[in-house]
């Protein structure tokens, strides 16, 4: 169905940069509690368009939860999450998880899936998929089962799938924490390209080197609370809080 009828949808997909901006994202006194236990609390901030924001903090500080809450996988139990276009869960956003979750089908099939969910016609899907394969140098593995790729290839595919959805903002939860250095490089290069395409990046990492390389802004979380939100250069040059200083110093110790 729809093959050879380049209607509205193909165009919409390919020049998807125009819909109303969903950024900045504002969090107003946001908290998240499960069973009376507060996991995030009192977080107020603005996530600006076009920046690369690093979410930092020790294990258990609430980084993953923070990303899921922004993305809309969980809803705040207090406070408000406000997208600039007024939606509660904006459509034009994507998330890449620490361990890539790929479907048990081919590389091309994985790329095609979210487009099928959006009701994009078969012909338009095929075009978008082949563009994406080419752009990220995945063409030679289009027909290979996604589950049998190496860890680095899987994460590159997950990133390509996110890019294909033309998000305005991309959330990444420690995207390279289980990858070797060269795969990590490849991921960072992709993230940079996304950023150059105008995609806002919000990414958690506990790799300080990576945060220095990629970060323009830094959010520092400690025990579910927002301790700092400032420009990356300033954060690394002189963190304002004791917790952040200890965190950065800890990196020097081990």
């Amino acid at each position, binding site marked *: 169905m729809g093959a050879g009828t380049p209607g509205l949808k193909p165009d919409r997909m390919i020049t998807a940069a125009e819909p109303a901006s969903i950024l900045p994202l504002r969090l107003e006194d946001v908290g998240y509690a499960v069973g009376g236990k507060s996991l995030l609390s009192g977080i107020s901030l603005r996530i600006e368009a076009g920046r690369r924001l690093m979410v930092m903090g020790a294990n258990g500080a609430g980084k993953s939860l923070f990303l*899921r809450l922004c*993305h809309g*996988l969980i809803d705040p139990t207090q406070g408000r999450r406000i997208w600039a276009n007024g939606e509660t869960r904006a*459509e034009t956003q*994507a*998330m890449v*998880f620490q361990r890539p*979750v790929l*479907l*048990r*089908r081919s590389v091309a099939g994985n790329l095609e*899936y*979210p487009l099928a*969910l*959006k009701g994009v016609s078969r012909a338009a899907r095929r075009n978008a998929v082949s563009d994406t394969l080419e752009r990220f140098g995945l063409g030679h593995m289009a027909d290979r*089962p*996604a*589950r*049998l790729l190496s860890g680095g290839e899987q994460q590159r595919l997950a990133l390509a*799938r996110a890019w294909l*959805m033309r998000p305005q903002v991309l959330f990444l939860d420690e995207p390279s924490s289980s990858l070797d250095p060269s795969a990590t490089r490849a991921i960072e290069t992709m993230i940079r390209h996304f950023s150059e395409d105008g995609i806002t990046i919000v990414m958690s990492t506990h790799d300080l080197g990576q945060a220095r390389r990629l970060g323009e802004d830094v959010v520092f979380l400690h025990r579910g609370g927002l301790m700092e939100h400032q420009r990356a250069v300033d954060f690394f040059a002189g963190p304002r809080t004791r917790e952040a200083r200890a965190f950065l110093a800890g990196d020097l110790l081990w």
Partner: protein
Amino acid sequence: MMQIIGLSLRVTLTAVVIACVIGLPLGAVLALARFPGRGAVVVLSNALMGLPPVVAGLVVYLMLSRSGPLGSLSLLFTPGAMIIAQTLLILPIVISLTRSVLEDLWAEYHEQLRSLGASRLRAVPTLLWDGRVSLLTGVLAGFGRASAEVGAVLVVGGNIADHTRTMTTAITLETNRGNLGLAVALGIVLLTLTLMLNAAAWGAGQWARGRLG
């Protein structure tokens, strides 16, 4: 003899297909939906996997007998009745297995699928397709159970020659008659079929694992 084998396969395969058409969506709903009494339904479907074929046959017999609620259909002692009874035997297997396979997949997939924009309902076909290899194993287990059982088809089919006589009921009959040669021959056919089917399933599983990961 070919007629007996043909009827056996026709009855069991039809029952498998019907059980899948009903059981796959039901199992999926049990895996993804949360409603009061869900636990009881899960326990019930697990327990019914061990339903003795004779009891399943008895239930269908009571439903279809002349004075039963469905007596007007005149299905008793026809292949149709045998299909119904075997569907009843396979259904719990398909439902329970689908639920367990899809629950595991959902645990792995649900954040990613929601992130990609899939609703719970839209996730069902995705999960069924991605669980296809494991689900096939379960469907074959159902086929094995149905093709091996004798109680249900005997009770509701009546083992009427040229009409409702299957391999298992024929084996029972010929053994009682002392016609052991024929009984053994049918037994070998039945075993061979089961063996071939399981070899095919195993091969498909291996191939899919190598192919799909």
